């Protein structure tokens, strides 16, 4: 599948590529001494100063490729064949000492996905950077320290001279990633390998890091190998793109060409599954993703939602919801502060409608979802579901009322008992609410499994025997067993691969169409939210700062934070490659307040029918 003609134009011009991979094959030793091929015949180049993106879903082998370049795979359980030429060295022929001397931290450097765990928790940040500086060159300590501070300033960490002595836990995720980048730059590498560096970060932080990387690349003249699953990031960062599927390169070429005219069915399917922010302009109703035929590459039609919400009476009416957690500290474990996770949140949802709650980490959206169904006991306010106020119900009455409002969680594997079959897990709530006999329960479970796109035979399996997307479908089936009127989807699609995400979103819309169920869709992914919502509420620091119909919020945002959020979203449009967001370096704040804090009374302005904005100041 590799089209050699689209391989590095640099080769054609005559400058030697900085990285040249030819026919790379990687196998892993699995159970029972069998070798499994995870990468097959991979070839591509990276020219000096250019950015190449390796894009694919889980299992595509993109991370394994990056680890192979630096020789970071375990030699006891992995076998590599082919050739990897990096700055003139054949990586596969070098021994460990050679790798250390020439490659790692020298010609190439790498930054990883999880900034929270990639820094050593016990050493100061400055020491770790200085270690990178001194591991290949002799340098007096004072000079190393000076250079480390300079590097921290280069990655735009404010107050670098002071923060160099801090420990990693004193930094937020985005800041830690900057520290990682500083460490990687210490040796002025010719190639920077970035393995999903922004996947674990919030949208606004991601925007800053991407800008930073673009600037640093220009300044240092580095080449970048950028691994990601996010097509928006690919469009923004990469000159050329390699699309991977199951260890093979499916298509490669200039990014603009791939986006404008994808050749292979898989590439087409991938691009069709990516929600593009702004593409819903003029669409009156939520829209399903088009389904691409994997053989012909022909895209089906994107079907809109047919049913309409019933605006006579709301099914859920939340008023002044407040959730605060105590922060305990010190040796005595006493209360030192409070987290105002949810502060006076109010909204309504009508039958058959989807309201999305968007925001970044720490804004309180997930906590809102949990507080509504009383999964924590720290909330006050009023939550009316139909005729009952959930906060006024006794324990048994609340338990029975739970039938009507169900939640689909973020991590389907963790929310299923590993020691129960899926069938038992589905039938259990049915029986607990006295909805029928066990036989009736199993019949309903089988029906629902079919409806969510699985088979009744899978009821005998245990949760670990499913893939991620399948598990999420099982959770959806479980929620539907109780015939709920409202479903809270708490980041339910966030952890799924791009194509699977599209399928599950389509499934949710099918359910809404067929059964008239309302959704409270909690997410940080605005592009997905755009496709699925009737109305959107934006949360920041525990409060709703703006709420209104989807078109209003996305096309005419009024609140400063909403604008910032929308501006930070990556759009899969290669034409935006040279755009800079010029965002100030922010640390995302969590609403931790002193014990005597009195929250101010907020007022909202209705700037358009149904569109309310919080008034600042």
């Amino acid at each position, binding site marked *: 599948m590799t089209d050699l003609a689209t391989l590095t134009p640099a080769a054609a011009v005559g400058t030697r590529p900085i990285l040249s991979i030819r026919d790379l094959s990687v196998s892993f030793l699995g159970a029972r001494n069998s070798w499994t091929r995870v990468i097959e015949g991979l070839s591509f180049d990276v020219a000096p100063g250019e950015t190449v993106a390796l894009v694919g879903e889980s299992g595509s082998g993109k991370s394994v490729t990056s680890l192979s370049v*630096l020789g970071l795979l375990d030699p006891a359980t992995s076998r590599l064949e082919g050739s990897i030429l990096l700055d003139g060295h054949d990586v596969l022929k070098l021994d460990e000492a050679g790798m250390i001397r020439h490659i790692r931290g020298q010609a190439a450097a790498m930054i990883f996905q999880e900034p929270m765990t990639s820094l050593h928790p*016990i050493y100061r940040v400055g020491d770790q950077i200085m270690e990178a500086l001194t591991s290949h060159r002799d340098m007096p300590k004072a000079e190393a320290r000076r250079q480390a501070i300079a590097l921290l300033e280069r990655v735009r960490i404010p107050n670098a001279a002071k923060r160099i002595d801090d420990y990693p*836990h004193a930094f937020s995720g985005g800041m830690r990633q900057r520290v990682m980048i500083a460490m990687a730059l210490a040796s002025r590498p010719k190639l920077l390998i970035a393995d999903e560096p922004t996947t674990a970060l919030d949208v606004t932080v991601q925007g800053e890091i991407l800008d930073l990387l673009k600037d640093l690349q220009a300044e240092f003249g580095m080449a970048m190998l950028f691994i990601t699953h996010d097509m928006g990031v690919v469009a923004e960062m990469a000159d050329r793109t390699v699309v991977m599927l199951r260890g093979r390169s499916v298509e490669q070429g200039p990014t603009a060409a791939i986006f404008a005219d994808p050749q292979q069915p898989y590439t087409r399917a991938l691009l069709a599954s990516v929600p593009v922010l702004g593409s819903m302009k003029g669409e009156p109703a939520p829209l399903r993703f088009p389904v691409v035929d994997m053989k012909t590459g022909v895209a089906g039609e994107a079907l809109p939602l047919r049913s309409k919400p019933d605006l006579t009476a709301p099914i859920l009416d939340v008023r002044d919801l407040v959730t605060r957690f105590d922060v305990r500290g010190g040796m005595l474990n006493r209360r030192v502060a409070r987290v105002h996770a949810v502060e006076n949140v109010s909204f309504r949802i009508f039958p058959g409608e989807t309201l999305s709650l968007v925001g970044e980490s720490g804004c309180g959206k997930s906590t809102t979802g949990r507080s509504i169904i009383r999964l924590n006991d720290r909330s006050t306010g009023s939550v009316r579901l139909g005729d009952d106020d959930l906060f006024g119900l006794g324990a048994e009455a609340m338990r029975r009322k739970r039938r009507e409002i169900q939640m689909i969680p973020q991590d389907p594997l963790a929310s299923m008992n590993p020691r129960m079959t899926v069938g038992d897990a589905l039938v259990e709530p049915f029986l607990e609410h006295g909805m029928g006999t066990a036989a009736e329960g199993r019949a309903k479970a089988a029906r629902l499994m079919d409806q969510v796109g699985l088979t009744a035979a899978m009821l005998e399996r245990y949760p670990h025997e499913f893939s991620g997307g399948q598990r999420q479908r099982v959770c959806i089936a479980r929620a539907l067993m109780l015939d709920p009127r409202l479903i809270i989807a708490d980041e339910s699609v966030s952890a799924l691969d791009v194509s699977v995400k599209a399928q599950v979103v389509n499934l949710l819309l099918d359910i809404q169409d067929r059964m008239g169920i309302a959704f409270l869709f909690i997410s940080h992914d605005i592009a997905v939210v755009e496709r699925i919502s009737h109305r959107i509420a934006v949360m920041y620091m525990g409060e709703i700062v703006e709420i209104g119909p989807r078109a209003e919020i996305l096309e005419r945002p009024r609140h400063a934070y909403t604008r910032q959020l929308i501006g930070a979203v990556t759009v899969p449009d290669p034409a935006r490659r040279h755009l800079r967001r010029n965002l100030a370096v922010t640390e995302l704040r969590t609403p931790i307040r002193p014990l005597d804090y009195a929250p101010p009374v907020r007022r909202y302005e209705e700037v358009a029918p149904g569109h309310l904005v919080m008034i600042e100041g």
Partner: protein
Amino acid sequence: MLAAILSRLLRMVVVMFGISVITFLIFFATPSSDPAARIAGKNAAQETIEAVRKDFGLDRPLYVQYGLMMKRLFITRDLTSFANRGQQIVPAVAAAAPATLSLVSGAAVLWMLGGILTGITAAAWRGRWPDKLLMGISMMAVAMPVFWVGEMVNLITQNRLHDTWAFSWVPALGYTPFSQDPGLWFRSMVFPWLTLAFLYIGLYGRMLRTGIIETYQEDFIRTARAKGLTGRKVLLKHATRSAIIPIVIMFGMDFGVLVGGAAVLTEVVFGINGVGRLTYQALKVLDLPMIMATVLYASFFVVVANAVVDLLCLLIDPRMRRA
């Protein structure tokens, strides 16, 4: 800050008080134990027992007995033994303390050095023969009761091979204070040290090996390797430094418990007159004041060790320092 320290101290005192009450109740208040009968000896006449009871104040109400004993232990410090008439308790314990301290401290140095070396070496050569050998020995060390190891050591050094050049320097069983004869002190402690340390080397070696290998799965190790650090640096500076924290915590607890008297078996086998042996002998003859004193002594060290370990945690693991 001051309030936190004070509350911690208060908690320690409460725990020790609780332990003293439990001990007191066990010996004085269990329905079928009669201290007077024990003291008077087997087959004593009833009058003798009554006389003993009056003599030792065992006919007073329980809380009075408790109060009196505590007062004489801490305040007037003239508490005397039930078993050896006229023997003062507090000086007896004070005299036994250095022996135990010598034994445990020496063993502690050995087992920390040995355990850390074992753990690191086994982890570094994971899967190959040094690892298998060290872990095999460690498993055996953990499986052998410490007093049995002591007996076997004595068999060889005191008896079977005593006359050979290898062991002729080993003195007879017993403890000599350092101040009296340092050379003899040292020579008589070598094998007790080795015996006690052997068990803990096995224990700690295994723990550290597992800890290091688990730490290797962490992301920050991958970062260190990507930086181009040598294997040795990654092992020693990054992995071990992180994995050693639980070892230090365990060490604090074990040291505290042993100094308090848990080394009784080693002391008995090697004839060392330490606190453990003292406690055991007191228990055997139901010398209640001595029992109270030694048990309090032991629990004091456990409680202090707990506090020191908590403090150590703050020092060596910066993550704990978050307010």
